[in-house]
């Protein structure tokens, strides 16, 4: 690994290294914290005297990998709404930084970055020698243009705007003047009005692909990129094929190794795991996108390799506090929400809904894998109190319709929760909607369950999903105290200091009964033996350059 080091190591990173040495934090936590501060993964490992694990050392060159995945229509990266779309283009459009299963963030198109001590200035050092397909070099201008694009809040469905929120001027809905500053041909400086520690990990998220200046949103497929693969065939819902660009020298080969494969084929087998099973049995795919629910046991019984990653991905059963039902807004009443939470024993939901493949969560959407997680007492399970609260609120007779998507684990988990609510004496009606219609109104259902993917920092999901007025605020939660505390947490770069605030935030979430969040999921996928680098990624990213067949 050459030329990875930025000359300066953030002081907080050194402090974290000491904490790691003292056993106060785990290695994963250390890596997440240190790399978010701009320390490269290699340096971070160096600080604690460890060597990075090398999983991709034994791949042979060549081969075509057949990957089961939904093949969706392309769109402009910043409006991507599914990781699958990003995966189709990931071989071509690369990212500034890459988040890995061990919790570290490492530079891709960025060689390194520095976060100032007050977390208000971020200096991005663009990697030199990265070439677009037309032979021109990737420059700071390209990076600045992409970041500015992410900040265009008015673009329909631009979810990057949420991640870059600090950079956006609320009056003009674009980046604040002077916030994105090009220093020289390979340096960009971000000047934030408020400290924001999530920007760097936000740049690792799947819509943050770096696109060329001449991108035509109607023809994403033939756009030029910096990566080693090109999407040569795309039939939505059927299949897609990525091939190595001929005679292409990839910048990453000497730094990270790879790419190994000649081609990757994505084949769409729909959303039914039974079809994936049939495909594996027929030897028509080599690796699954994700193995889910009861089928994990079935796949285990076959001659396959199982990959696992523990995440902060979860399912949330939430009420929409603004929802009107027959002229009333029952879920605006805190007692009603608390009643639901009291009626559900999260451990039982984990067992019945997800076969114990995860860890119990505590109704506040901050995971133990997040660096700033504050341990709170487990939520109370008390069915009698639940009914009493519901009666007190005057909604004991009301029938609550609990909606979920029609799949395996989300449906089962919601069923388990509903069964416990009924046991507590609450009047629950279950409705299961097919996947094709469920997402149309996902944020507006009065009472429903939603799946959330993992994000590297605990504050991130809170900012996306529970801050007042956010597009993805499905619970319509609006609490000024929560908002201001979260704003405070978002400005503390040091995870330990942040934890103090987080403890308060998490307690507010529990107290307000915003969500029932039964468990954190482990993710799995299964692959036919003899592959490297195809294990499931913590946020479903496919790093094609790591894929290969074992030598």
């Amino acid at each position: 690994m050459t030329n990875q080091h930025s000359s300066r190591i953030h002081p907080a990173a050194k402090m974290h290294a000491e904490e790691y040495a003292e056993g106060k934090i785990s290695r994963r936590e250390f890596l997440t914290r240190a790399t978010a501060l701009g320390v490269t993964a290699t340096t971070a490992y160096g600080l604690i005297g460890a060597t990075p694990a090398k999983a991709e050392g034994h791949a042979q060159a060549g081969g075509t990998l057949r990957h089961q995945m939904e093949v969706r229509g392309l769109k402009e990266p910043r409006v991507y709404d599914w990781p699958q779309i990003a995966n189709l283009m990931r071989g071509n459009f690369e990212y500034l930084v890459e988040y890995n299963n061990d919790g570290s963030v490492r530079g891709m198109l960025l060689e390194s970055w520095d976060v100032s001590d007050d977390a208000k200035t971020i200096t991005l050092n663009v990697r030199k020698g990265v070439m677009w397909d037309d032979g021109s070099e990737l420059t700071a201008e390209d990076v600045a243009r992409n970041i500015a694009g992410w900040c265009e809040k008015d673009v329909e469905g631009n979810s990057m705007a949420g991640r870059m929120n600090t950079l956006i001027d609320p009056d003009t809905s674009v980046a604040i003047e002077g916030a994105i500053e090009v220093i020289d041909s390979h340096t960009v400086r971000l000047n934030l009005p408020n400290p924001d520690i999530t920007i760097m990990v936000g740049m690792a998220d799947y819509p943050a692909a770096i696109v060329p200046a001449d991108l035509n949103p109607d023809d994403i497929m033939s756009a030029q990129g910096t990566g080693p693969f090109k999407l040569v065939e795309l039939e939505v819902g059927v299949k897609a094929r990525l091939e190595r660009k001929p005679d292409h020298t990839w910048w990453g080969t000497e730094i990270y190794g790879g790419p190994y494969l000649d081609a990757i084929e994505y084949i769409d087998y729909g959303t039914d795991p039974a079809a994936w099973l049939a495909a594996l049995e027929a030897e028509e795919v080599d690796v699954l996108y994700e193995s889910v629910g009861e089928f994990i046991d079935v796949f285990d019984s076959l001659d396959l390799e199982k990959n696992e990653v523990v995440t902060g991905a979860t399912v949330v059963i939430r009420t929409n506090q603004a929802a009107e039902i027959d002229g009333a807004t029952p879920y605006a009443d805190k007692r009603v929400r608390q009643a639901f939470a009291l009626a559900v024993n999260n451990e039982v939901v984990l067992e019945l809904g997800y076969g114990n493949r995860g860890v119990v969560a505590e109704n506040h959407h901050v995971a133990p894998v997040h660096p700033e997680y504050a341990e709170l007492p487990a939520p109370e399970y008390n069915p009698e109190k639940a009914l009493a609260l519901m009666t007190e609120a005057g909604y004991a007779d009301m029938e609550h319709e609990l909606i979920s998507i029609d799949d395996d684990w989300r449906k089962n988990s919601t069923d388990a929760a509903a069964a416990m609510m009924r046991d507590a004496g609450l009047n629950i009606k279950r409705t299961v909607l097919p996947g094709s219609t469920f997402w149309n109104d996902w944020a507006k259902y009065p009472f429903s369950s939603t799946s959330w993917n993992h994000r590297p920092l605990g504050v991130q999901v809170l900012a996306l999903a529970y801050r007042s007025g956010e597009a993805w605020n499905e619970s319509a939660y609006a609490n000024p105290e929560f908002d201001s505390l979260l704003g405070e947490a978002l400005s503390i770069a040091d995870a330990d200091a942040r934890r103090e605030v987080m403890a308060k935030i998490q307690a507010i979430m529990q107290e307000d009964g915003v969500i029932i969040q039964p468990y954190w999921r482990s993710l799995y996928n299964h692959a036919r033996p003899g592959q490297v680098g195809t294990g499931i990624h913590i946020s479903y990213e496919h790093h094609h350059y790591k894929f290969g067949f074992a030598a």
Partner: protein
Amino acid sequence: MGLFILRRVGVMILTALCLTFIVFFLTNLYPNLEKLAKTQGNMRMSDEQVESWLGERGYLDPLPVKYGRWLGVLPGWTFEDPEDGKITGRCIEPGMDPADAPSFCGILQGDWGESTVFKDEVGTVTGTRLALTGKLMFWVMVLMVPSALLIGVLAGMREGSKLDRSLSTFSIASTATPEYVSGVIFITLLASSAGVKWFKGTATSAADNATFENFFLPVLTIALYGMGYIARMTRASMTEVMTAQYIRTARLKGVSFRNIVIKHALRNALIAPFTVIMLQFPWLLNGVVIVETLFNYKGFGWTLVQAAGNNDIELLLACSVVAVFVVLVTQLISDIGYVFLNPRIRIA
């Protein structure tokens, strides 16, 4: 005859118009449009974003106007972006100068529109998918028709014999088992680790390269269902013919049983099954929806499911036109074929 065919074509156009209008009406209900906007734009768009997305693409205009545009009797929508003045429109292909674009683009102009799910021309999508279903249907027919006729004739030759009873039991059982039951049983028994792995439980790769291994199960699943039905019809028709006067006369003349069946009975016995076989075509179009989804064979039935699930308006309309066409054309063929098989019937 010419007039008869002409009248049938007229009926076909009228039916297609009525059916597409109903489909058009249903797919243009606001919740469905909202779903469309969200699947096309972003799953998690807000209401205002949905509204502007739909408005910019002409979806919020009155229903008859939109239907007229689809037919090509009204000019397509255009939209001028208030910010950069960029003009987009139904008839303006990406990269085309708005001034050069035609003002009408609908069925009458030969433009079937754009599939929102598959991001491709509707004509291309239905064409490719129909060809794949055609391949499936061809092999179904090759397997189903001869075996059904054979079973029916064998069973009908001697009514009440042991052969008749066992074949009848088989055909009743196969008709009584719907595709989604027999398909699942076949996959479990013949294509999984739970049973024997003789075949493949998925036919996805059969689209490019159909082999006995990956294509037999879906073919068998559809064929079995129709087979029993046709066999029963053939048997009934055969037993009736076998009791006819002229068969008795032939027997008394000393014609061998074999010759009676092949030379005298068969042609008359095939009239009824012929209609049934023709009616099987539209029925198969229906059956392939289940089987193609079950075996992940990406043909017409699968396309229909995807189009309906994603409210792909123009693709659904094209699918309905295809369905009307297939039903009425097969009926036409069966009516005409009837005349040749049965000289007693004439078409006015």
